[in-house]
Each structure stands twice: as C-alpha cells, then as structure tokens.
C-alpha cells in the first residue's frame, strides 16, 4: 500500500523520466494507430464492398490473427529488420520506428476485422434506400462511412488500446533504451525486475488510466449509436 502512495507522488512530482516514458509510449502508439488506420480502414471497407473467391477464408484468417501474440510479431519483424535480415539496410532496429512497425503489424488485423464486421452490421435497407434515391459508387461509400463513423472510430480506439498496452513488440524491437525507446510497458517490466515496485506501479497506474479512458470512449461511442 505504501508503494501506491509513492506511485502517486511520482506521478505528481513531475519526474522528468516518468514524463518522457509516458510521452514516448503515447507518441509511438499514436503514430502506430494512425498508420494502421490509414491501412486498416480502407482494407476493411474494400473487404466489405467486394466479393471474391476465398473471401470467407480471408476473413477467418484475419479474425484468427486477432490473437497474434506480441512476441511472435516482435520476432517476425525483428528478423525482417535485423541487419542480417531483408530490410536490414533501413537501420531502424532498436528505434521508435521499429516499434511502430511491429505495432502496425499487430493492430492491422484488429482494425480490418472491426471495420469489416461493423460495416456488415449496417442495416441492409440503408443501401437499398441509397440506391433507390439514385446514389452510385462514391456516394454510397461516403454515406456508409458517415453512417458507420462510430464503428470506425471504435475500431481505431481498439487498435490503440492494443498497442499502448503491449510489451513484447516494444521490448524486442525497441530494446528498452532509456530516453529513447523506453515505454511504459517495457519500463514496468524493467523496474519490477529490479525490485523497484513503486516506480513500476506509478507507470502501471498511468497505463491503466489511459486504457480505461480509451475503453470509456469506445463505450460511450457505441452507446451513442
């Protein structure tokens, strides 16, 4: 209990290291989420509006990838961007960009899947009405996006929730470098391994707060629909 008190003390004392760690975490996760949104939302929309052979198989695969373990993603991306790997010349291993890359891989299936399943829940009569009113191609797409904006937003937030809380990718690809790639989760792992539980707990409290906020937003949005 005593360490809880010290945790709050750390948060409110404006400790520069804690601030940097929180900021790095947020910054990396926001970029990852942004990149994933740019890729995953269109992919989900394409998946919804097109029919092609093996589509159900593809959807099943994407859904299965929701359970992708972070360390496996870390390992895969590591072997890609290691100097001896095919993308080694990028020289991004052990940098924030390596974490971004891993987190994009991690959250892409989540966004595709949520956007796709969200769109398929839009009432079928919605399209019929649109078509009856003379809407074509682009208009249908635009109208659907407006109709499904909360679905898309909550898909994005779910992706964010996944990446802000993961530790496997950040640890393996970022290397937990102080002042550079140390995020809240890797820092919690490090501090607790050193027996510095109050520092770990302080970061844990911040992390949980952010996770709760994100989930609260999702919840409110879904309710609003």
């Amino acid at each position, binding site marked *: 209990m005593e360490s809880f008190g010290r945790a709050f003390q750390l948060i409110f004392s404006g400790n520069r290291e804690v601030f940097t760690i929180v900021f790095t975490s947020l*910054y990396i996760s926001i970029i990852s989420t942004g990149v994933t949104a740019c890729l995953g939302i269109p992919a989900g929309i394409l998946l919804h509006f097109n029919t092609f052979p093996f589509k159900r198989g593809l959807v099943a695969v994407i859904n299965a990838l929701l359970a992708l373990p972070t360390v496996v993603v870390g390992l895969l991306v590591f072997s890609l961007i290691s*100097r001896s790997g095919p993308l*080694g010349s990028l020289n991004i291993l052990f940098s924030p960009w390596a974490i971004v890359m891993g987190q994009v891989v991690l959250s892409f299936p989540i966004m595709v899947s949520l956007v796709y399943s969200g769109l398929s829940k839009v009432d079928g009569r919605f399209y019929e009405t649109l078509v009856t009113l003379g809407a074509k191609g682009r208009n249908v797409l635009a109208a659907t996006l407006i109709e499904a904006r909360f679905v898309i937003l909550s898909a994005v937030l779910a992706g964010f929730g996944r990446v802000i809380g993961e530790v496997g990718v950040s640890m393996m690809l970022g290397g937990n470098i102080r002042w550079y790639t140390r995020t809240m989760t890797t820092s919690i792992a490090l501090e607790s391994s050193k027996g510095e539980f109050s520092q770990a707990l302080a970061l844990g409290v911040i992390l949980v707060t952010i996770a709760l906020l994100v989930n609260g937003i999702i919840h409110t949005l879904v309710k609003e629909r």
Partner: protein
Amino acid sequence: MKKILCIGIILFLAFGVGLFATGSGEKEMPANPRIKMATTTSTENSGLLDYLLPVFKEKTGYSVDVIAVGTGAALELGAKGDVDVVFVHARSKEDEFVAAGNGINRKDVMHNDFVIIGPKSDPAGIKSMKDAAGALSRIATSEADFVSRGDKSGTHVKERELWKKAGIDPSGIWYKEAGQGMGAVIMMTNDMQGYTIADRGTYIAMRDKVDLVALVEGDPVLFNPYGIIAVNPEKYEHVNFEGAMALENWIVSEEGQSLIAAYKIKGDQLFYPDADK
C-alpha cells in the same frame, strides 16, 4: 472544439519529432553521434551505465543506446550487426566472438566476482564454504530451491561451468530456470528463499530490497571479468566503428577507469577497473 483538438494534436506531434531528433547540442557533434551498445543486465541493473554514460556524452557528444540483455544475446546482436559495440562478461564466449571475425579490439574493462546468495537460514549449509562447485553440489543434494538465469548470460555460463565442475547435471523441481535478467532472478530467489549465483554488482545494488545474504565468495573460479568489443567494421560496413572505439578508449582511459572505481553503493565498490594492464 475540433480546431482546438487539431492544433493540440499538431503541437503534440511537432514536440514529439523534436524529442526524437537527436539532441542539437552546442558542442561539436561527432559525425554519427549515436552508438548502439548491447550489454548484460548486470551493468545496467547495477546502475553503472546510468552513472558512466552521461559523463561520456558530456565529454564526446556521443549518446549511447543501451540494450540490456544477457551476454549470449548481446553477442548474438553483435554477430548480426545490429549493434556497434558489446560490453559483456563471459571470456570464453568473447574469444569465440572475436575468433569468428564478429568483433575486434577487445579490451579488458573491469571485474568483480560472483557470489552465491541464499537465505539467512541456509538450509543447504553452504555458508563460508571456499569451494563454489562444492557448495552447488551441496545445494543439489539438499534439493533446496536454486534459481538459474537459464538465458545464456555471462552469469549463466559461469553457473553451468560450476555445475560441470561439480559433476552434476542439475534437474528436478528444485532447479528453476527462470530465463530472466539478474535483477528478476534475485527477486524470484528472494520470494522462494532459495539460492542463486549473482554478480556482486547487481547483488549489492539490490541487497536492501531482498532478504538474502552472500554465502559463498572468494573462490578464484568466481572471478568475473568484463570486456568491451567493437563490432567488426569489415564485416558490417554500417556499424558506428568510430563511436564504438571512442567509447572503448574512453572507458579504459584514466577517467573512465577512475569513475568505475569510484562507483559505490552505500560504501561498497561494485566493479574494479582492469584496463591498466
């Protein structure tokens, strides 16, 4: 409202880019001011690097990205060309690393020693034994909990060497391979009130947080030397060899060495400089 949000996000991003960009100091910056160093958990968990590297940065402008893993993993990162320099402690592995052409200019930096730590009650009765391998075999016989790093780190390599010397292949539920860093293993050992082998630096750094005492020390086989090796620039053109050598030369310089000797936690010296030879 949306506008404010947008401006906020832009400011946040701009600030972040500033934070990520390597510091734009006033002093002369080296051509490539970032050095990636793979090292063992003991040098970081003991606080030594947090104490040394800011001084090195002040002097030379190089900032060192520390990736703290076990010695085995650190050498592996060096062999793959993913780091510029390795700072490790497992002499036999280091020599293999250099012989394989992965690294050059190996230098002795410092040493300390390993200690076998365990609970005050000492159920295996190893206190003050002078023979480390004998102590391990007594732990095995009594089947008291023993936590092994199990991660090919320098400490793990030493531990395996001792088991081999004792003629025992440890197995059974009392022998727990944690696969974690030194700090985490000491914490686990504390929770189980079992035994483990630790480098003295990390043990001293964590002594106040645990209820474990050093039971066996002083056996010459427990000697623990640390070496620094630059990754071979002929094998990997991209490595920051200049930076690696700047770090090597500084850490074995009089200044680096005297700083290492002066690093103390509550009056106890953690590492002893070695480079004067």
